[in-house]
């Protein structure tokens, strides 16, 4: 921490310390330094103090290895107390939304990670609109943030908006299934969707290639807007550009997850042990897990949050305001020159409190009246 503070302090010292004219002429170049080159360091320090938060949603049919992948990505066991439902229980189950929050710290940087799980998705015989609970949840989070943002006390706004949704596509199909298309079309304007090919260890390399091509074609065909990696600037170095190209070409990522460590070639690696060989999760030749992890955590986490705030949330907000103003103009039936800004409606809790207090006041007034009358009668 101190080493980061040092250049800033040194610059400040240099600027403030008195110098002789000769020295000043020599240090003319210093005059050009205003000092705001240190801003990234300041932001860095503040963010580290504040900590980051990230909400990740995982969706897909059951049995595609979602919890295992989350475990491998963040190396924490979020599902220790999970009980798998039996077949009878699954028949009557509807899609639920489960949230697990965990605080992870690494090298002084704190991350508050929330995983939103969607058990029961796509499991029933009739899966019509099975994504409705999920869209409702995402909208709810946007609505809550909208209210908080328009409210009076904005110091501690909790950002529960879903920043990224990992959608697991079954490797056994010939591309996207109707459920997949339905889900993605319902959510692509609300959340960043990153499609993944799950359980990729059951496919040989040629099959993976063909499946990826097919999925990319179908995503184009159905007009689904998945999360696009931002273009890298032209002045970045070649290595970075090469990495970026590889990333874009490997989408959708074919991933494998594992929560066991096995022994391979004398080393302990995270992987799966089969009679015919060992699949290593972190081996780039075996699957795209490393690419996914780098993208999600190491390079694009902030971009995902930005796109959620700037694009999806703004769309929601604009849509909401439009609806409210159109309703108001319909109700009031007059053209107001200034667009009416709707005051945030006090939420149910405070309204209830206000009503209760009103009632109390009224009751007390009645009692006073009664007492006055009694005294008069006496």
């Amino acid at each position: 921490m101190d080493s980061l503070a040092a250049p800033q302090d040194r610059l400040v010292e240099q600027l403030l310390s008195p110098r002789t004219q000769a020295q000043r002429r020599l240090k003319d170049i210093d005059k050009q330094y205003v000092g705001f080159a240190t801003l990234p360091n300041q932001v860095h320090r503040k963010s580290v103090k504040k900590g980051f938060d990230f909400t990740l949603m995982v969706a897909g049919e059951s049995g595609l290895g979602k919890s295992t992948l989350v475990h491998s990505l963040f190396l924490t066991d979020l599902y220790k107390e999970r009980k798998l439902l039996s077949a009878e229980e699954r028949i009557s189950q509807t899609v639920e939304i489960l949230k697990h929050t965990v605080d992870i710290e690494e090298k002084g940087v704190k991350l508050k990670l929330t995983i939103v799980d969607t058990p029961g998705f796509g499991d029933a015989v009739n899966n019509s609109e099975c994504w409705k609970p999920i869209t409702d949840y995402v909208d709810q989070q946007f609505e809550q943030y909208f209210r908080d943002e328009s409210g009076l006390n904005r110091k501690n706004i909790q950002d529960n908006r879903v920043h990224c949704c990992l959608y697991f596509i079954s490797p056994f199909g010939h591309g996207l299934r109707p459920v997949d298309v339905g889900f993605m079309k319902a959510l692509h304007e609300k959340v960043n969707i990153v499609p993944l090919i799950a359980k990729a260890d059951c496919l040989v390399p040629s099959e993976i290639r063909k499946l990826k091509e097919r999925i990319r074609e179908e995503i184009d065909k159905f007009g689904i807007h998945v999360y696009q990696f931002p273009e890298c600037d032209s002045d970045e170095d070649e290595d970075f550009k090469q990495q970026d190209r590889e990333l874009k070409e490997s989408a959708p990522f074919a991933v494998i997850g594992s929560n066991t460590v096995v022994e391979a070639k004398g080393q302990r690696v995270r992987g799966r042990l089969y009679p015919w060989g060992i699949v290593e999760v972190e081996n780039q030749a075996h699957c795209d897990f490393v690419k996914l992890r780098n993208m999600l955590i190491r390079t694009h986490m902030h971009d995902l949050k930005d796109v959620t705030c700037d694009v999806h949330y703004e769309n929601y907000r604009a849509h909401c305001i439009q609806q409210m103003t159109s309703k108001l103009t319909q109700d009031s039936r007059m053209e107001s020159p200034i667009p009416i800004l709707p005051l945030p409606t006090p939420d149910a809790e405070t309204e209830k409190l206000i009503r209760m207090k009103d009632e109390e006041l009224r009751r007390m007034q009645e009692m006073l009246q009664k007492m006055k009358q009694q005294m008069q009668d006496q």
Partner: protein
Amino acid sequence: MDPLRQPPSPCSPRPSSPRTQSCEMLGYVGIEAVLDQLKIKAMKMGFEFNIMVVGQSGLGKSTMVNTLFKSKMWKSTLPGLGVPTPKTLQLQSVTHVIEEKGVKLKLTVTDTPGFGDQINNDKCWDPILGYINEQYERYLQEEILITRQRHIPDTRVHCCVYFVPPTGHCLRPLDIEFLQRLCQTVNVVPVIARADSLTIEEREAFRRRIQHNLRTHCIEVYPQKCFDEDINDRILNSKIRERIPFAVVGADREHLVNGRCVLGRKTKWGIIEVENMAHCEFPLLRDLLIRTHLQDLKDITHNIHYENYRVFRLNKSHVLPRGPGWVNLAPGPAPSPASPQATPRTMKVCRWTQDNSDDEC
């Protein structure tokens, strides 16, 4: 069980019923030569076998059929290249005649693309049940003709292989609904498809859970416990019932392993050999379907499932005269399988006779 024996007609008496006495032979007569005669006749006529494969798209059904019969029955669709899934369930049949060591087998494979692929899969099993009953109906119509053909062409489905996706958890509601309905009309053999995505421990746990699910929902898959004839059968079939559902992997490409050419899938971390018992249970499935139980599958279809259908149909249309063989069947949507624990007046359609109520079912 002699694999070359033809399916006996339903009303023929048991070969050695306990009523007739056995007497001693004074010399060699040559009765055993009847086996040779049967064999020659069978080879001339050839055999028929109809198999149906059911499961979601991409579970390797066409590849499995190709692997089972070691020939390109279907052009197996590679993942990523397949035709778009049809909007409704369509059944497609393909017939081939394959020959091995002079024995001809007319094999018909029925595929069911589009099963379980839609968003709303309610009643997606109806076309399949309809097809199976249609084949029974066809056979029945041929059988009740006045001048019947010598050999009625048999298009009835002898075996239905159901592909369970390898989720690793348990049977899905769709699987249970389908299996409950189909086990009453046809022999169903469930298999765990694409088992190369499960490790050995995961496979065993999954298998136990599926067996538990099947028991809970009273689903009787092939080989059914109530049709075991004698103690030997029971022992053999119990061993098979322990391992059902088999975890299978299908492949139709050959690779070189240790100098041998094997059918398998080549991945970056190893080659999965389809015929290696340590890798997957495909040999067990092949042995069950072809090498040991093929004739048994046909027998059960003919003697039990077809008979159930026939009795149900004839009762409904009142064609069968009310005689000593008539049973009182309450009209229902589908005939229930014969089970000793059923109510006393249900039909006892046993393996051999219909009037011998002393015989065990």
